[in-house]
């Protein structure tokens, strides 16, 4: 979601008083208010509507939604002047293949408007532009440029210009290494033999997209009346629409849009504000929304969403990026109809409910254990090596079979292999709580199978008691096994354990299959966790028990 700031004064002057009712209308338009200050109204715009990322774009659609200016907004396009030309050189083909450009004249800019232009550019970069990866936009004062303009690629050391906010000329490579913005976006050009540039007929470099503009030609001021706008990138359909979003916003500010000839472009003339026509079926609409609209009503609703309707077709503005299918139009109709006007209804259909049987068994086990006054705890599925291995007496070299996360913003970066270490962590964090403490957890654990290397995921049960000894924990296990009517037995474990006391550890078997371990925790582990009371504990894999009982 992107947050867009609307100037409150401007909003109240051009749209209407901002009160509770207006706030509700804004929410029902799908752009809920995030925050309001004395000067600004902050709204949330979903990624499917980049055309709402500026005040101008929002106003255009919202006035239609309110029914004040319904229907598709038309903008006058001026044919290109003779020199209004951009030449796409073959050299950009494999580097940054597309661009779509326009000229807007007759602008009267002030601080507020310049701020808005910069903001919409940045918002588009971050959202549809995927942080400039997919597309980038440049806006230049026309009076500093000699037309025509060429879009081409050059070796980085041959590119030389003064980048924005920098005191001297730099080469393409230097910009990526030394300029703050250059460093931020260097990864987008890294490894490329040639970098793309826009260059005017006097051989002045205007910009090196998607990184930075030139200080000399890439900065609009209050004096700027005419601008050259370009949008370059990899996805022609999207960048074309982005250009339309920008130029129509500039037109809303009072500018006149001029087309340019794009030599070597996918389309020869840009911008292209031609609407798109998509079929809409009244029956489909009524069926999906559960409504009973007439065609006339449909037309009114379509117009409220800033589109036009003609005999089964919707005319979609050239700046909408989100209409892929008829359902997208139907959603617009629902929004225009008002979600608050849709009456919720539960259909009269018959289906049989069914809980996952594993969940039933987990609940039964929990009931048995809580009946023994054991408290259920719930821990994270994520853990770290310190908890999972180090404190459990496992040396670095012995770590194995765990699932590692590629990147984590928290201290937890592996998936838990068992529940035991978490129960000990719980005890260690509750040394000031009343004793005895008896706890259990039922939960998912993860492991990489040593032989097959497959990632395994299963449900475990762990029970811990403190102060507690082998007899007491065994009593709990036997009671549980009797209540579930299972043949669970304990056998001597000959293998050494990292955390149980030798001679006080047992294998837990269901029939002939081992399903877990039971024992008393070794003092050295208790001391790792700073636990001052003896702990007896068991952990079993529940999957075989599920198989037996389901």
């Amino acid at each position, binding site marked *: 979601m992107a947050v867009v700031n609307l100037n409150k004064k401007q909003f109240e002057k051009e749209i209407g008083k901002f009160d509770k009712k207006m706030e509700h209308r804004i929410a029902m338009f799908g752009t809920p208010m995030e925050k309001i200050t004395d000067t600004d109204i902050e709204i949330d715009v979903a990624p499917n509507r980049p055309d709402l990322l500026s005040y101008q774009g929002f106003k255009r659609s919202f006035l239609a939604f309110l029914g004040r200016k319904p229907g598709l907004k038309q903008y006058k396009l001026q044919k290109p002047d003779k020199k209004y030309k951009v030449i796409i050189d073959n050299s950009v083909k494999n580097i940054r293949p597309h661009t779509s450009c326009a000229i807007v004249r007759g602008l009267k800019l002030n601080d507020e408007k310049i701020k808005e232009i910069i903001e919409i550019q940045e918002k588009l970069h971050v959202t549809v532009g995927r942080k400039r990866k997919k597309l980038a936009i440049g806006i230049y004062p026309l009076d500093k440029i000699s037309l025509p303009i060429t879009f081409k690629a050059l070796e980085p050391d041959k590119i030389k210009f003064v980048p924005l906010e920098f005191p001297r000329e730099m080469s393409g490579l230097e910009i990526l290494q030394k300029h703050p913005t250059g460093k931020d976006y260097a990864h987008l050009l890294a490894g490329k033999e040639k970098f793309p540039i826009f260059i005017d007929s006097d051989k002045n470099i205007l910009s090196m997209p998607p990184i930075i503009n030139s200080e000399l030609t890439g900065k609009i001021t209050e004096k700027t009346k005419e601008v050259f706008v370009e949008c370059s990138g990899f996805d022609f359909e999207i960048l074309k629409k982005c250009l339309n979003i920008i130029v129509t916003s500039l037109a809303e500010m009072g500018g006149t849009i001029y087309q340019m000839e794009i030599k070597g472009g996918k389309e020869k003339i840009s911008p292209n504000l031609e609407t798109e026509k998509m079929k809409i079926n009244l029956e489909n609409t009524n069926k999906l929304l559960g409504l009973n609209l007439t065609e006339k009503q449909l037309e009114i609703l379509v117009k409220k969403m800033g589109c036009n309707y003609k005999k089964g077709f919707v005319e979609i503005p050239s700046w909408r990026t989100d209409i892929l299918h008829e359902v997208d139009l139907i959603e617009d109709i629902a929004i225009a109809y008002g979600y608050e006007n849709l009456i919720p209804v539960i259909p009269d259909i018959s289906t049989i409910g069914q809980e996952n049987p594993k969940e039933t068994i987990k609940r039964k086990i929990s009931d048995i254990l809580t009946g023994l006054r054991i408290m259920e705890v719930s821990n994270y599925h994520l853990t770290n090596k310190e908890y999972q291995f180090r404190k459990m007496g496992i040396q670095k070299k012995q770590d194995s079979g765990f699932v590692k996360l590629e990147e*984590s913003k928290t201290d937890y970066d592996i998936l838990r292999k068992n529940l035991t270490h978490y129960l000990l962590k719980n005890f260690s964090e509750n040394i000031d709580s009343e004793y005895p403490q008896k706890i259990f957890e039922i939960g998912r654990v993860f492991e990489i199978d040593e032989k097959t290397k497959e990632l395994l995921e299963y449900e475990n049960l762990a029970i811990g008691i403190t102060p507690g000894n082998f007899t007491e924990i065994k009593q709990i296990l036997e009671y549980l096994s009797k209540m579930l009517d299972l043949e669970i037995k304990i056998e001597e474990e000959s293998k050494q354990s990292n955390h149980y006391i030798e001679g006080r550890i047992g294998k837990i078997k269901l029939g002939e299959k081992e399903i877990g371990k039971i024992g008393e925790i070794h003092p050295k582990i208790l001391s790792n966790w700073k636990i001052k009371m003896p702990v007896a504990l068991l952990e079993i894999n529940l999957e075989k028990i599920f198989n037996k009982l389901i």
Partner: protein
Amino acid sequence: MNKKEITKIIESLSPNERKVLARLEEKKIQDICEKSNLDKVSVLRSLEYLQDKKIINLIFEKKKIIDVGVNGAFYRKKGLPERRLLHLLNTQRIIPLGQAQKESKLSIDEFKASLGVLKKKALIELNKGKIILNANKEEIAKKSLEEIFLETLPKEYDKLTDEQKYSLKSLQNRKNIIQIKEEKTIQIEITDLGKNVMNAGISSKNLIEQVTPEILKKESLWKGKKFRRYNIEYPVSAIYGGKRHFVNQSTDYARKIWTDMGFKEMDGKMVVSSFWNFDALFTAQDHPVRELQDTFFIDKKTVLPDKQIVAAIKGAHEKGTKGSKGWGYEWNEDVSKKLVLRTHTTCLSAQTLANLDMKKLPAKFYAVGKCFRNETVDWSHGFEFNQTEGIVIDENANLRHLLGYLQEFAKKMGFKKVRFRPHYFPYTEPSLEGDVWNEERQEWVEIFAAGIFRPEVTEPLLGKAIPVLAWGPGFDRMIMNIFGIKDMRDMYKNDLTQLKKLKILTK
């Protein structure tokens, strides 16, 4: 107070209270203990009970007692350091400082303090590193106020004379000479009611204390007898039972709601392929949610489901399904093989749709489970969260039905007012978010995320685009609301004291 009431009070006296009551002529607690053969705790408790019954008044007094400290006790025996230094000076009237310290066997601190004291009293002078005695025999022999005071300790502070207070102040400045203790004393005062009770006699012959198996054996032991009255309003110590964790109580309740409404539970893994978590849900491969900083990826690849489904999903992304334009980019199979810790339970819905028996429609499914996102933890965010998912596959399903199911769920969760707003998700259209009204904070709280699956989702998975209502509300805010938890970090803190005391979900 009439006789009947006095009898009632007498009947309510416990054996210990009777014992103590009988020995109240002893003024000291210690003596009551000895005479009644009870320990101090029992006596004190009985006294409190007697006070509760208005038989006695307890007057608590705190006294400040001045006593000697560790050093004080030692000095009392050996003399204060200044006294010891004075003794030495008495033998040699002029001594260099170093020698004096050595021969007096005082520590540096003691020595310095002694010099200070003696100088202040003008008994000595210091000159060119030497101590010169400046007093006559009489003056030397005279005990100082501090010395006298030390000998008289312990003493009650309130009873000190001004002179003694002066000595106390000067000794208090020195290390561990003085110790001040607080002594609590209790004075017992028998009330008029108490006198009446005592006069009426407090023998316990006919009162049964506890009902024991022995008493029950013979009718004669209890028939016609009175039982000692209990103060039933008296507080008892708290006990606690075993209990489900409150998050699991809540997820279990969500299960009950959905099964009651005819939904079948889905089950599945938490680690899934990007294919099921994203691609099958028409989330483009360059969508920001698929970046490392938002999602937990696992450096491991898995196998994809059968080729037909993979090809259909690829087609939906690249060219769209029937009537759709798709995202228009080149779909990469490798990217979809990457394992991810599920970011929503919707991946279960996608798998369910892929395996659905189309002859058994309409069908309704739900899931309740943990989901994950790569996020730092604060009061309102966690990297693990609970979601409850639902889908309805029905040829005739529509948006109003979706609102109907959600409204019902919210109602059963205890939220009376619900509103729905337009929203956006890549895999649903129409999409919506639902808010519930928080009466306490007087604001809408967002809980639902829902929509109707796009044809680009349903067609590849079902083979046919039919409406599938889908929702995946985050569950944690509801849990926090129900249990009054303000900080998300408290959900998995497992503070046993807190868990013990937390109420049970009564739904």
